[in-house]
């Protein structure tokens, strides 16, 4: 078996084991926590102001999802079977809509918001970081690194609030200009469609959440890239090329390309962080993605939805990690060609 297949195979095995363990955590947690949260939710629902038929309906749905009336091993096998067939139960709220269809409605918005922000931050941040380390000692370096250091420490949610205040609320109050809308993914009077009007409205609503995700992540890439690129600059081949009189532009391209490699793997790890920042960003912008779905479910303890969102988001992160690993194989000649002996 060639090295590439071995590499991909190992990654795939780890991925499956990890997903299995994540599923097990989601299974075990509600069952081992003292006081049995599901049971106590049923009790607290009973003492609430729900009508008797609605209450028995809730109870039926909870029992259906958690199958508390069956032996543990049967529960676990059923849970796994359902997770892999995509049956995540029925929401307690939302008029009993299946969790899968709820997620299918919200996930595209999250991906649309997340992917451009992550990719843009990665490219710009790495370029700036490499440039800064190449221009060591210059004002450009000091400004970029200083700004990167501060920006990388700004929490996503606070930046989101501040951006709404500074770019949406203030201009309206001071000059009466509607620069950017303060929330939501598109104008509520419009229906999602591929018309020009809708796309423009979508893009205008997109700017602020995009910026609030982009900037902190950008700062992180600048900082980490500078460290990698500085080490790369110290390697013998750069010194040799420099002595040969290779042009600055070409030298910089060498450094950039070689320092990008470790950053590709870092992209996979970073994904989880951005995702968690994004859950809160969505809440603040009232952006109808997975974050809003999760926050609303958290408020009313809609366990089937919380569990479903957890499993789908983890699957997404794992899948993205796998894709990143795959890309890594494609671009790193040491892994791609390592098995050749010529």
């Amino acid at each position, binding site marked *: 078996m060639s090295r590439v297949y071995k590499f991909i195979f190992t990654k795939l095995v780890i991925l499956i*084991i990890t997903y299995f363990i994540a599923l097990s955590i989601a299974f075990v947690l509600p069952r081992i*926590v003292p006081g049995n949260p599901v049971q106590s939710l049923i009790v607290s629902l009973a003492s609430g102001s729900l009508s008797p038929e609605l209450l028995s309906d809730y109870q039926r749905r909870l029992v259906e999802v958690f199958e508390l009336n069956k032996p543990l091993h049967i529960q676990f096998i059923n849970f796994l079977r359902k997770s892999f067939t995509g049956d995540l139960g029925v929401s307690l709220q939302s008029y009993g809509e299946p969790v899968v269809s709820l997620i299918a409605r919200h996930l595209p918005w999250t991906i649309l918001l997340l992917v451009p922000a992550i990719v843009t931050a990665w490219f710009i941040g790495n370029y700036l970081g490499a440039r800064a380390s190449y221009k060591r000692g210059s004002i450009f370096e000091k400004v970029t690194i200083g700004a990167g250091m501060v920006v990388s*420490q700004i929490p996503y*949610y606070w930046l989101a609030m501040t951006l709404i*205040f500074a770019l949406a*609320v203030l201009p309206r109050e001071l000059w009466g200009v509607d620069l950017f809308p303060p929330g939501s993914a598109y104008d509520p009077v419009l229906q999602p469609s591929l018309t020009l009007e809708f796309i423009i409205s979508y893009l205008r609503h997109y700017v602020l959440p995009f910026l609030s995700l982009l900037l902190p992540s950008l700062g992180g890439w600048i900082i980490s890239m500078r460290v990698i690129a500085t080490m790369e600059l110290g390697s013998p081949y750069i010194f040799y090329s420099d002595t040969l009189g290779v042009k600055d532009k070409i030298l910089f391209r060498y450094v950039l390309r070689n320092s990008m490699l470790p950053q590709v793997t870092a992209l996979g790890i970073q994904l989880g962080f951005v995702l*968690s920042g994004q859950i809160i960003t969505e809440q603040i912008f009232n952006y109808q993605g997975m974050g809003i779905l999760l926050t609303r479910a958290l408020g009313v303890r809609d366990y089937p939805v919380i569990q479903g969102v957890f499993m789908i988001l983890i699957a997404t992160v794992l899948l993205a990690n796998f894709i990143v690993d795959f890309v890594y194989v494609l671009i790193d000649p040491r892994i791609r060609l390592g098995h050749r002996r010529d």
Partner: protein
Amino acid sequence: MSITELLYVLFNNKRFMIGFGIILFQLLLSFMGPLLYPVDPFSTDNPPWTPPNEVYPLGTDRSGRDMLAMIFHGIRNSLYVGVLTGLFTIAMGLVVGLISGIKGGILDEILMAMTNIVMLIPSVLLAILIITYIGYENARLELVAFVLSITAWPGFARAVRSQVLSLREREFVYLSKIAGYNSLKIAFQDILPHLATFTLVSFVNYINLGINGEVGLSILGLTPMNIMTLGKILYFAAITQAFILGKWWTFIPAGLLQVLLSVSLLLIATGIDEVFNPRLRGM
């Protein structure tokens, strides 16, 4: 190097000093503040939405809570969560990393597989799931710190292990082995002292992670309601839509302080790194 020499070198490092100064200032604020300005941060007796004035230096929020009092108490509790997260993470990471690196073999394989798996699970998601089922009413600050460190330790454990692996091949460890010392003694006498700086730097970084993680969980409403933290301040601002209503004083100062806290911790960490890791100097 003796302790005094060490301190001398550290205090001569510009980054460390700036970071240390800011932290000291914030610590002073959080401990002296409540004494000099004895206002209950949860009291709702004041007029709502007051902009900063002479009576309320930082104004009040929708329920009439005094922002300045909230910030004093918030910094202290946020730092507490941060330090606890740092301690938990370091403890777990050191134990796993040392065992893995010194013992090796099948134990090493299992532990490292474990870190691989935990690292892939997004931390906030896991924290959300754990706290939801435990119930946020029962969530104490200690639990918040613990939940945050559950997902943070693998990175540190792996780094410790790789350092131990290279230290293990050094002469002084061989000599200890020849002298018949057991692995516990080797771990504590020969290996741990060499990990001291790295551990300290990581500790500072995990404090930062704890502070930020707490704010994230707070904004989702997953931390105890009766304890004021920086996260809780932003939570109140978020649920009252203060940023859309233009009440800047309810979230700008608290957020700025948090950024300041994070930047100073980052400065301290890089400062320590520079002092003890000469290759990084002048970067």
